[in-house]
């Protein structure tokens, strides 16, 4: 397993800044353009600074709702008064500290103030535990937990309410996990009682990661290569998915009215989206990098597509975003001036399209909340596939719930024009070729790579080819990327370049001001060759950037 090899080879890796790459200008960034279609952010920082509860979020959105702003500008609804945005910084109490705790036998947990008891470590935002020993018995009855198969899953995701009511479990039925979720709730509340927030528990190979976003508590339990901060980002995506289904306003008011509400009632039918999202995160770098994968197309074709959308959508007043996606890849986004899309909102849109075949049956009109855009309300989406023979899905998003028929007509004209300019064929051809082969780069030692342009929030990677054919090999590779990513971002010691000797390959990662690059090499490659290859690789990406990235940010 990849985990094992990481440990044993810890010594053979070196972190250093080498001279060879200085020939690359400091601000070199293939894929970057003057204006980006997506908002580029450092999610890892953002998560830290997010409000800890939906209530804070709601009161913030009450003051500043993008949807209201749009509705106002559309002359739809005039709100009583416009309030000025005040920049309130959310309670910043992150004096980092660690509290070590010990879990004794008999499944009882003792949390002590006395430090240094490995192997179990509970990390919290600060040390404020009472000095008295607290003992909590765990009464264990749920059958699921004793089921060996259930235990063996490498990553569990749980969602529960503040009151400890189960909402979602990736595996097993929530009903059987009532007790377990009760324990999770207890852990959160014990720590909370002391004015602190629980973050993670480390037990052997397992990490228990908590994200408290009241009224919800999200927990990941994993023994994968994903680091605790990476798992927090994943939990945050899951939380955003819940918001995209319910909106923060609804979530908030439900639990304000009834603390004990069983949220599964309202989420009925959305489990599929949760399952799909959680599965995808195990293999798709989009979430790790907080970036979007684009469908490779010549810039001429992509421009024609964007222009077709602009041409007809600009005639309709209230289209905020027009998004064209095909098999989890972005073809183009056309956006209203002033508004940009956040990559994690786009992930949710793609997840929605991927997890339901319903849109294939007929054109649809559905509410969707994009939490980063505005968590307080719904946008309305006209969703349709371009053609029975083309798996590209067009979403036209608006704030006006009466716009369906206008958008239907708009969509018809767009599709007509795309047909006329053979854009559907181009999209299909690109999908069929499944991206590009690493051999096109022409660098013999290079097996695979992932490159992200930071300002564009887009990434590119060649398709997985031999030796990464089996599921196991593919997921091992992904695990290595997760590991590299974690090391590069390690807050205690962030790295610029990392050369890592794995069991079956050599890995190299490289962070510059504008980009992140991770690559896998043949096992016998030297450091010198690998670094040289990376230099050539970024130049190749530069040469291909028009095809691999969306370089234009058309607006309506």
């Amino acid at each position, binding site marked *: 397993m990849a985990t094992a090899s990481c440990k044993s080879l810890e010594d053979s890796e070196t972190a250093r800044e080498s001279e060879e790459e200085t020939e690359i200008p400091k601000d070199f960034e293939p894929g970057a353009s003057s204006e980006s279609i997506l908002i580029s952010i450092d999610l890892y920082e953002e998560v830290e600074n997010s409000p800890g509860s939906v209530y804070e979020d709601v009161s913030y959105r009450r003051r500043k709702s993008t949807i209201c702003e749009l509705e106002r500008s559309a002359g739809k609804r005039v709100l009583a008064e416009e309030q000025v945005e005040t920049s309130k910084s959310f309670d910043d109490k992150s004096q980092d500290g660690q509290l070590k705790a010990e879990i004794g036998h008999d499944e009882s947990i003792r949390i002590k103030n006395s430090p240094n008891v490995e192997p179990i470590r509970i990390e919290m935002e600060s040390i404020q535990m009472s000095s008295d020993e607290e003992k909590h018995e765990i009464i264990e009855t749920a059958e699921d937990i004793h089921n060996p198969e259930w235990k063996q899953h490498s990553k569990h995701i749980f969602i529960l309410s503040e009151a400890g009511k189960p909402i979602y479990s990736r595996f097993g039925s929530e009903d059987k996990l009532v007790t377990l979720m009760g324990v999770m709730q207890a852990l959160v509340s014990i720590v909370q009682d002391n004015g602190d927030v629980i973050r993670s528990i480390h037990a052997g190979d397992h990490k228990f990661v908590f994200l408290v976003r009241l009224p919800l508590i999200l927990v990941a339990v994993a023994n994968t290569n994903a680091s605790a901060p990476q798992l927090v980002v994943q939990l945050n995506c899951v939380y955003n998915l819940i918001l995209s*289904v*319910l909106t923060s306003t609804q979530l908030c008011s439900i639990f304000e009215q009834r603390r004990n509400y069983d949220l599964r*009632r*309202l*989420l*009925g*039918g*959305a489990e599929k989206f949760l399952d799909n999202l959680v599965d995808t995160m195990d293999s798709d770098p989009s979430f790790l990098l907080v970036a979007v994968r684009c469908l490779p197309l010549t810039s001429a074709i992509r421009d024609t597509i964007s222009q077709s959308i602009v041409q007809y959508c600009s005639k309709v007043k209230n289209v905020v975003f027009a998004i064209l996606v095909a098999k989890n890849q972005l073809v183009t986004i056309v956006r209203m001036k002033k508004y940009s899309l956040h990559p994690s909102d786009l992930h949710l849109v793609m997840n*929605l399209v991927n997890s*339901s*075949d*319903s*849109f294939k*049956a*007929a*054109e*649809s*009109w*559905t*509410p969707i909340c994009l939490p980063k855009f505005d968590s307080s309300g719904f946008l309305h*989406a006209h*969703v349709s596939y371009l053609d029975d023979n083309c798996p590209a899905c067009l979403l036209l998003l608006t704030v006006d*719930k009466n716009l*369906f*028929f206008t958008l*239907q007509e708009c969509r018809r004209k767009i599709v007509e024009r795309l047909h006329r300019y053979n854009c559907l064929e181009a999209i299909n051809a690109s999908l069929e070729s499944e991206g590009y082969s690493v051999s096109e780069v022409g660098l013999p030692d290079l097996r695979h790579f992932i490159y992200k342009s930071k300002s564009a929030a887009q990434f590119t990677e060649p398709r997985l080819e031999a030796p990464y054919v089996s599921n196991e090999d593919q997921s091992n590779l992904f695990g290595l990327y997760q590991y590299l990513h974690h090391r590069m971002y390690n807050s205690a010691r962030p790295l610029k370049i990392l050369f890592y000797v794995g069991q079956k390959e050599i890995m190299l990662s490289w962070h510059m001001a504008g980009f992140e690059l991770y690559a896998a090499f043949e096992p016998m490659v030297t450091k010198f060759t690998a670094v040289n290859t990376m230099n050539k690789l970024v130049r190749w990406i530069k040469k291909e950037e028009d095809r691999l990235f969306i370089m234009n940010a058309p607006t309506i």
Partner: protein
Amino acid sequence: MDSLEAKVVVLGSQGVGKTSVVVRYIGKAFSRHLSPTIGASFFTCKLTIQGFHVKLQIWDTAGQERFRSMAPMYYRNANAALLVFDITSYESYLNMKTWVMELRRNVEEAVVMCVLGNKCDLKSNRAVNTTEAQQYAVSIGATYFETSAVSNEGIEEAFAQTALGLIEVFKNNESQHNKSNDSLDGVDNVLSPQYPLRTNVIKTSEPEGQRIFCC
């Protein structure tokens, strides 16, 4: 030949077979691989009956609880409603009744209603008595059909009956307006004071024919 256009909304609990029924009617086939509807799907179909060309705009809504609050968006201005329940689930039957009440509360215009007891191929698991459903339908002025998307029973009939109901409404409105020859060209005029009866039938200048409703 006269023609008319009408908006039909399909309502009912999650999984009762709303999409299956519509897809069976329009696509002439049963598809096992339908996913639960997200929001609402939009279909159109045309049929000719009693010398009328009838064009139906069908809103097939999602039965999932979270979309419940969105429903008014889809049934607003509906001319006809297909109220679907699953004959193997009494709960879905009760839920269908709450849809009827909601429609009555919120839609001012007369709505042609048609109750469908779907999945009638699963007779051995029947949980809703035919007479009970039948009587209920009569009590609300609706027609009742037992349907199956699997064995294609009752669906053609239900749609035909709905179209007939719409034609009847259309004719009534027509006579009430005394065939006035106003040429109205948009939904804005539907509730204009010229029509104290607040009918939702409008005549269009389009060659297509007359619309009962336009978006």
